[in-house]
């Protein structure tokens, strides 16, 4: 593995003050919670947050409790881009300094909220749009979205006798947003924390439309051990299932590049959602990844040997939070 700079070096300036505090109702190990908390922490108290319908609304702001120490608004599912447009406009009119941030799920950004996201991006609204991507509609019980990876089990892409798992490849949302010619687009992973913080800080320091796309492991949705979220996020990058880069004023830059590509099975094997995956589907996914790797890193990559190893076998639960997690 490439050397990861000491996380402490880049993190010295990060405030210790949390804006999303403990006591909320996320599943133990939830990638959303870690991501949202750390983004809010970097953005600080002069921030107003909008969260559309998603896990985050439910676990952080159910009346009469709230885990937020900054103003919070929720109204619906598909309108993050539009609500944050309105909030920011109000502060502009009132002369109030505030980071306006929308934190939407993959469903709320890739699918039903794509129009409002595109509208806000195209207008170059002065807001930060965070997509918390757990690769399915988790809040309604793990249904497929256009962020769901190829082959993954969800409740609407079950591992059936005829068809097993999701048949389409993950949509490249960050590329779509970057095509709107916005000041800043970045992809983030909680496994690369220094990179994570730098990107949030950079977004905070800029103006105009800023888009942060975060891969956020979901314990019951991915059928993983609560302690494994970060390692799985790391493997996502090492296998090419996730790539870390930023596009600043149209100029793309890879912010972390794995030394060599790990076989996708290293990633799949830890997650119950890929338990059923066939050798043929692994091959399909692996060659898709190699094409993506080449397009992204600009170099041909040799297909790493895939071995389907069931590392999730030891899971003490079936991943469903209602079933004793």
């Amino acid at each position: 593995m490439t050397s990861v700079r000491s996380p402490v070096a880049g993190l010295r300036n990060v405030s210790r003050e949390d804006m999303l505090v403990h006591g909320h109702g996320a599943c133990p190990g939830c990638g959303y919670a870690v991501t949202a908390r750390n983004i809010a922490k970097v953005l600080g108290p002069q921030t107003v947050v909008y969260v559309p319908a998603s896990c985050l609304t439910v676990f952080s702001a159910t009346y009469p409790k709230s885990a937020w120490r900054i103003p919070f608004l929720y109204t619906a599912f598909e309108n993050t881009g539009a609500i944050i447009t309105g909030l920011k406009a109000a502060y502009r009119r009132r002369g109030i300094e505030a980071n306006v941030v929308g934190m939407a799920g993959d469903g709320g950004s890739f699918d039903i909220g794509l129009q409002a996201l595109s509208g806000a991006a195209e207008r170059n609204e002065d807001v930060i749009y965070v997509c918390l991507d757990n690769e399915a509609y988790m809040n309604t019980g793990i249904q497929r979205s256009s962020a769901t990876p190829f082959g993954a089990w969800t409740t609407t892409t079950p591992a059936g006798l005829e068809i097993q798992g999701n048949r389409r490849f993950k949509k490249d949302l960050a590329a779509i947003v970057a095509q709107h010619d916005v000041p800043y687009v970045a992809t983030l992973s909680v496994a690369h924390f220094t990179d994570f913080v730098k990107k949030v800080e950079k977004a905070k320091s800029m103006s105009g439309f800023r888009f942060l796309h975060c891969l956020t492991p979901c314990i019951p949705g991915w059928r993983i051990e609560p302690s494994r979220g970060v390692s799985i996020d790391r493997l996502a990058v090492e296998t090419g299932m996730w790539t870390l880069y930023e596009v600043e004023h149209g100029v793309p830059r890879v912010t972390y590049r794995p030394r060599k590509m790990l076989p996708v099975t290293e990633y799949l094997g830890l997650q119950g959602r890929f338990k059923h995956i066939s050798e043929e589907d692994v091959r399909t996914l692996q060659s898709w990844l190699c094409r993506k790797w080449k397009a992204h890193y600009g170099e041909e990559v040799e297909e790493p040997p895939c071995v389907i190893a069931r590392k999730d076998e030891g899971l003490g639960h079936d991943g469903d939070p209602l079933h004793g997690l």
Partner: protein
Amino acid sequence: MVRMTITANAAVAHAARLARVALVPGFPITPQTTIIEQISEFINDGEMDAEFIPAESEHSVMSVAIGASAGGVRTFTATSSQGLALMYEMLFAAAPSRLPIVMVNANRSVGAASGIWTEHNDSLPVREAGWLQAYVEDGQEALDATLQAFRIAEDARVRLPVMVCMDGFILTHTVEAVDVPERAEVDRFLPRFDTTNTLVPSDPMVMSPIVPPEFAMEMRYQQDRAMQASLEVIKEVDEEFAGLFGRRYGGLFEEYRMEDAEYAMIGLGTWVGAAREVVDQLRAEGRKAGLIKLRFVRPFPATELREALKDMKAVGVFERSASFNGFGPLYTELRSAMYGTDVPITDHFGGIGGRDITVPDVREMYEVVERRSRGERVNECTWHGLRGEQG
């Protein structure tokens, strides 16, 4: 005050300008479009210190409006028909969040097998969204009702969004003489936007969280109380408006020649113009006809209407929106307001899909009302101006 010869759409744009609206999200839809065009011109010519946000859909228009109002600025928008339908979800978010957004709806047929012309089947179906709903008769009232709407919406006893509805084309595109007040006059009527309970970093607050059953019902009840309180606020605001501008609209509804009337017709919007003419004709013939122009459908002035109509020999309700295999919304509401009285009420549909409502149509309606009072068999619900026979 300046007298201008303008459309109701222009009049409404002037109202937004005079009200010192700070933010206007918008999306084009006939017959509303010239409102947002006019406002954009005001802004770009420096006559209005506001921002126009060209949202990418009406769902987003209402979402931007909600964000802006939650962020603490006076917010206005306008839509029509399909646009209102696309906003449906967000209408239901604005009201419980207690955001005093003012929106003009240019009434137009909604759905397929219709066009761009007047019908009330866009706004009446959303009367349970928690918005106040006003209907106007002419361009002057469109301007005045929009100004009043800000006062009512922002009143601390109300804090609810208000929709001002006006008939597409008949008002939106018809040029009339309209008295446009001066900014200073409006400033005396409409105070600065009250930013209490808005979202600001200096005073963190959660707005519209998930509300479980233990609390949601109380919140809904508070909405109900606010709507109830608006009945008085509407009357007060109309009085104050009359004191400052010399125009009075009767608050919740206007009574026309009702003093000694025995038969009444009630309805909304531009239909009232034809109905006034018919009442005048009937009166000239010595018949005891009267008219109620309903200004507000929400709040529905049930007690006040009952008081005004309880001694009638019969009442006819005119609706520019059909209910299928049943009675129209106004009939249903009036009927329950009149429950316990023995005043016969008939329902009348007309002007559907933008068809003209003629003086003979309204006369025909009146004859049905009188016949009903004599105990003659009439249709409980009559379609006027229909081609062919009615079964």
